[in-house]
């Protein structure tokens, strides 16, 4: 009973944070870039969270700084999941050379830390939303593909796949009707982790100082950390919100996957 209450409470908090992240900037009136007081002012009247390193109000920047970090990873992770699943199933179903090629491609991408991919592509392509999406897809899809390929190879051992052609199905419908529903669980079970990592990567770009000077939780942390002993709120609030988003992305998707496939 107590556990249930705690779970519900956590879910409510997570939901509230995600709502703030996505719709927070609707609550902001005026320009969050306006300088209102001296840098690193502690909270006071009219400035509930104090000011940041440039003397800007922290609260509107917090409200406006999360949307990008939720929507871009969400879209990019979905893209990575679709591409990775397709690639993994292709390798697993066709086997032979296709299997070797896709698995080589995966290990190739897995050998490189994602953050290095981020830096290389920011250098090569310049900062843009498209670049960030590409980074998440390139670093995430190999993980998805690996899971999908391994599950496909396992599912292929079953007679219902080998028999499906004899029962009148085409190759395509075998993949879509027989294999896909049976690898969806492992792929989804992994999706929470992928989404959390995507949020982290997207925020890392801001944290490392790339991108426009628009409000961004990742950037706020690095910008304000030097004044943390003067006023911690410019670091703590975005840090905690970011942590809640990543943790709940991971746990909620896990729960969802477990629920959807509980049979």
């Amino acid at each position, binding site marked *: 009973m107590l556990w249930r209450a705690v779970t519900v409470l956590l879910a409510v908090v997570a939901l509230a944070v995600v709502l703030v992240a996505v719709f927070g900037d609707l609550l902001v009136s005026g320009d969050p870039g306006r300088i209102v007081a001296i840098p690193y002012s502690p909270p006071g009247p009219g400035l509930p969270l104090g000011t940041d390193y440039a003397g800007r109000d922290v609260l509107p920047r917090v409200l406006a700084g999360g949307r990008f970090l939720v929507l871009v990873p969400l879209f990019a992770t979905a893209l990575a999941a679709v591409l990775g699943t397709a690639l993994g199933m292709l390798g697993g179903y066709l086997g032979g050379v296709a299997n070797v090629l896709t698995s*080589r491609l995966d*290990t*190739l991408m897995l*050998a*490189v*830390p*994602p*953050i*290095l991919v981020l*830096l*290389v*592509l*920011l*250098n*090569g*392509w*310049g900062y843009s939303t498209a670049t960030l999406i590409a980074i998440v897809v390139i670093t995430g899809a190999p993980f998805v593909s690996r899971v999908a390929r391994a599950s496909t190879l396992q599912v292929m051992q079953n007679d219902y796949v080998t028999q499906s052609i004899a029962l009148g199905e085409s190759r395509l419908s075998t993949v879509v009707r027989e294999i896909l529903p049976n690898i969806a669980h492992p792929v989804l079970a992994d999706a929470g*982790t992928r989404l*959390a990592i995507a*949020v*982290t990567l997207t*925020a*890392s770009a801001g*944290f*490392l*100082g*790339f991108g426009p000077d628009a409000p961004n939780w*990742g950037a706020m*942390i*690095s910008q304000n*950390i030097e004044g*943390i*002993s003067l006023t*911690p709120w410019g*670091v*703590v609030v975005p*840090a905690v919100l*970011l*942590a809640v988003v*990543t*943790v709940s*992305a*991971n*746990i909620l998707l896990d729960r969802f996957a477990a629920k959807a496939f509980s049979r």
Partner: protein
Amino acid sequence: MTMLYYIGRRVAAALLTLIAVSAVLLAASEVLPGDAASASLGITSTPEEVQALRDQLGLDRPLPVRYVEWMGGALRGDLGVSIMARRPVTEVVSAPLADTTLLVFLAAAVTVPLSVLIGVLGAVRRGRRLDRALTAGAVVTVSVPQFVMASLLVLVFSSTLHLLPAVSLAPVGGGPLDRPEILVLPVLALAGFATAWASRLVRAAVIDANAAPNVEAARLAGLPERVVVWRHVLPATVGPCVQAFAWLISGLFGGTAVVEQVFNYRGLSYVLVDAVRNHDTAVLEGVGLLLATIILVAFIIADVLALLANPKLRTATA
């Protein structure tokens, strides 16, 4: 004999991977050619000046040609010249690389024993309160971005408790080891994440091994629990664990890129971020190549260790 063959195959595969990684690296970091030259000269430069520098750097020659030259140089220990510093890349990177590697190895030294301890503990107490608490802690720790974790560590241990320095700058003319206390928080930030991640894999490996029929048979044969665990359970976990620890090296190097920034630790992160900001592509490519090499070597070592721990692979005759 067959083992050497197996190791040889792994090394060959790693070399191929390295060649592929480096090619992708070169191609991806230079999709916008020319920028390197104009970025280096600044916005006031004339097109003629930019062209002159492009010629000097050889940026107009086809990519494959430059790739071969670059790899040829790399084999001789020459990674090109940094446009910004106007010094060889190897010279620019060597000190920061050493400092970052120090951080990674310290973090690994903390992570490996700790994650084995936590993982085995969780597996032994599977489903009990301790295991559930460890699991929840690990999921949270793994999900939180490392720079967030690092910032919160600064808040707690520096600005609130005043126990440790918030900034990890080495003394002038010295290295980080001259002031070891500056290493504590960065290593903690790296190891926290890594331990949470690796302990999950250790736990899974131990649970797997413990559920194997040979372990049940050993228990039903009346062997003492100590013998069952050491002789029948743990040998089967060596393979998966060393593989996990190889991944760890890759993950830790990735982690340093953000953690160093939080603590102002002058390692590779600053070199890399400056390189991207200034379009100093040669530095970026050089560091990328070095890191990929280190990670692949870690993978090979893990493969060999896993091989030694598995008699089936060790004695294979094909």
